């Protein structure tokens, strides 16, 4: 007994083959329609962003290059050298070496401070886990995405580079843009 496909059979309905007039229309009319479409595109403004001169604005939560922060009033570093960011980093690109604060040499408000704080940006995947892990909001993700360089060693950012007020090279997207 053969299997009865029942309702599963799909009948393909095809349009009738075009006659002479219809074929002519399809050959010429549709060609003209295509020409009209392309001509309309020519009158519009190009959508190209002229990159080095014009930059695509980023959203406020865009995750670009990291920044380290200081307290605005005292000028002390927020980072206390706890290495939680390094522990959270899936790419293992953060290196923190902590040292004790002394009354003569106070760098951060806590017991310890980061003597060495390096981020290897050639390894970083910009996931933002360091920012999430930090208990003092000492490290955040900035907006800068222009990070190309000529050597790999130049992409290892030290504490001074991360603390420095970054050049704002990236426009921020305005409300509603």
């Amino acid at each position, binding site marked *: 007994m053969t299997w009865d496909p029942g309702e599963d059979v799909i009948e393909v309905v095809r349009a009738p083959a075009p006659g002479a007039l219809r074929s002519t229309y399809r*050959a010429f009319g549709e060609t003209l329609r295509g020409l009209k479409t392309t001509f309309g595109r020519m009158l519009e403004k190009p959508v190209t962003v002229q990159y080095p001169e014009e930059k695509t604005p980023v959203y406020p939560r865009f995750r670009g290059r990291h920044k380290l922060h200081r307290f605005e009033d005292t000028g002390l570093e927020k980072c206390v050298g706890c290495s939680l960011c390094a522990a959270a980093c899936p790419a293992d690109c953060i290196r923190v070496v902590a040292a004790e604060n002394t009354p003569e040499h106070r760098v951060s408000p806590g017991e310890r401070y980061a003597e060495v704080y390096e981020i290897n940006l050639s390894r970083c995947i910009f996931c933002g886990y360091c920012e999430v892990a930090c208990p003092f909001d000492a490290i955040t993700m900035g907006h800068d995405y222009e990070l190309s360089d000529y050597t790999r060693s130049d992409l290892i950012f030290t504490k001074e580079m991360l603390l420095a007020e970054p050049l704002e090279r990236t426009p921020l997207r305005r409300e509603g843009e």
Partner: protein
Amino acid sequence: MTLALVGYYEPWWVQVIKATVIFAVGLQLVPIVLITERKLLGRFQARYGPNRVGPYGALQPLADIVKLLTKEQFRPSTATGFLFALAPVVSIVTAVAAFAIIPFGDVQDIFGTPVGLYGVDVSIGPLYLFAFGAVAFYGIVLGGWSSGSKYSFLGAMRGAAQLISYEVSQGLALVGVIFTAGTLSLTGIVQAQEGMWYVIPQFFGFLVFLVAGFAETNRAPFDLTEADAELVGGYNTEYGGGRFASYYFAEYLNVLVVSGVVTTVFLGGWLLPFGLRPAGWVDPFVVLAKMGLITFLFIWVRATLPRPRYDQLMSFGWKILLPLATLNALVTAVLVVVTHK
């Protein structure tokens, strides 16, 4: 018709100067067409096109040509050396030669010397054109064959097949015009359009000639000989440097030649509508403006239509273009006989 009647009364030095001027103008038009095409294609695709070299990218063709000419001349070890070098030369010589008969104006009085604003006014105008158009295909066929590469060879074969499928229709499309004008001289054809441009009474001839013109210049949608997608560039796959530049140059010059012929034969050459009769020196600009319009059409079509399949082109050429062209020639012949008695 004697030679004196078709423009050979000019002294030799006038001929030399004219040849130089027309060649120089043609040479300068090619980069303009090149940059216009690239800018327009960009606009058709909602982008800017080249805009880095020079103001608005105007020096891009110069940069392209310098790049190509400073490159190494190489050839594959399987290539047939002599023919490989000869093929681009054939292409470019035929293109320049065909450019010679485009009339840019009537005979003008320049400092007391009557000078016809055209290279030569041959009494066999369209035939001369078809002769060089046919020889131009040797440039493609030889180039593809002598490269010793299968893609080039396929491109060359397609070129040959394409040639026979459109050339008859192209010829027949012009036959109607020649019947009506009663002359084979291109300046004579322009003068015969004094009352009405042939694009109106010969509309089907115009369409057929234009479509065949796309095929003759190997441009989209009939760029089957190049077909970058499947043939990696077709007949010019193995070419580089100056030889490739020659092919490139010939292609754009051919576009100009076809635009010039369409202008001359169907759009009334240097004539203006509504009885406008400007001074003689305006004529070349009128012709150039009309050529510009046709060239724009070439670019527009390239930006719009996809490339048909190989067999579709053949069946289009034989089953649609050829009957249309034949019918057009027949009807015109009957009308000319009926109305001229």
